[in-house]
């Protein structure tokens, strides 16, 4: 299964670079994550893994006092990725459906 992150970052007391580092830190233990065009996708092990990431993202949002807002959505493995922007299909498939090539 995999998760998609859509987010909005606004200017505020926390520098954008610092905020970006905090967001990426949430996913640092997940090496199968990628920013494909306008969509950040990440392979997750199970529902508990997804919930743990969601909790960390929520904490980032709280720490920066509303500068970071997001929607983090869980998808079944192989479920199609819906985005309006073009993205590299092969790269995405490694995360969306890692068992498909085996």
């Amino acid at each position, binding site marked *: *299964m995999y998760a998609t992150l859509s987010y909005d970052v606004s200017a505020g007391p926390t520098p954008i670079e610092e905020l970006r580092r905090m967001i990426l830190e949430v996913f640092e233990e997940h090496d199968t994550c990628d920013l494909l065009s306008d969509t950040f996708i990440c392979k997750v*092990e*199970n*529902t*508990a*893994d*997804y*919930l*743990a990431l*969601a*909790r960390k993202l*929520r904490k980032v949002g709280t720490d920066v006092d509303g500068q970071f807002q997001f929607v*983090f959505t*869980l*998808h*079944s*493995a192989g*479920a199609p990725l819906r985005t309006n922007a073009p993205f590299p299909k092969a790269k995405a498939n490694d995360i969306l459906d890692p068992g498909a090539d085996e």
Partner: protein
Amino acid sequence: MTRHASLLTLFLLGAVPAAAQDTPLVSRSGARPLVRPDGTYVFQHIPHSDLVFEGQIAPRIIIVDSIGRATRNVLLETKAPVWSYQVSTTPMVKLRMFDQTSNPVRTPSYMPKATVQFARFRNLSPEKDPDAEGFNRGPIEMWLVDVIPFGHHSNGQDGCLFTNQARNEEGDCIDVVPTPPEDQAVNKKDGSFSTNYIEAMAFYGRMALDSDGAAAGDYATRLEWRAGIGIQLNPEGYVGGSIKPALADRYGPTRILFGASAAQRGVWRCGRASADARLQWLTDNHPDVPALIFQLEGACFPSNWGGAGIFVRLYTGQDYYNLGFTESITRLQFGVTLQRDQFLSFRIKPN
């Protein structure tokens, strides 16, 4: 019927329910789950007899279900109970093939029944915050009332039940040779056996959940147990085919039922490892058979067997196979089984 043709038929009939399910061992939240199905079996037993094999074909056909919907709400409702029900039918058949001329299947038990289940779920997690890590792990408490408002058990034969009887012009079986009831021998070749029953059992159980191996957005049962008590009645005059007085005197028409079971997901190579104990107390048993029936079964369902598994069962007490009701048997049964209880999955609260 030949042995090979029968085995092939049994295999094909038994394979259909398992192949038709996407996740035979774990139901997704929202799907119609199998809870306490009878299961399909093919088996042998020791001590050895002239049995070629014994089989039970019992696909559960779910007609109406709200348990699936309930599994999407239990974790949302925090501590509030969630009620649900399921109505199903099971065209169950039990048969024994014997190592005799032409390998006869003598005489099969036809046991169709309707089942109504009521289930009440509640999350017993000590965590109150849905965002807390332990909230989705439960345990989930389940009260299950399993009712069979109508069950039938017959063997499709037209002979008289006892060997000293013959049918008169009205078709009733009367004693040709006057014989005291305790000396009457059962006509095992084509004796007609028929009864209708009502059964109700109430269970209490718990399920501990985790998300390994569960569908996206679900937490699935890792470990479960339940125990219950109930009663089975075989009343005279309960719809056509009900038990006759001569059979009621020797069958034991009132039975108190006890049951307990436990199962765990992912034990060694078993996608499901289960143990099941059942006890029946015949309140008005005939002196030929003991008042207690006991069975203990252990089963392992490998993850990649599509819902099939292997089992061992110890059975002791009155023979459950239609015309065997006057005999007491003790057997260690072993073989293949499929279409059994599914581990329930529960939908997490959305962020």
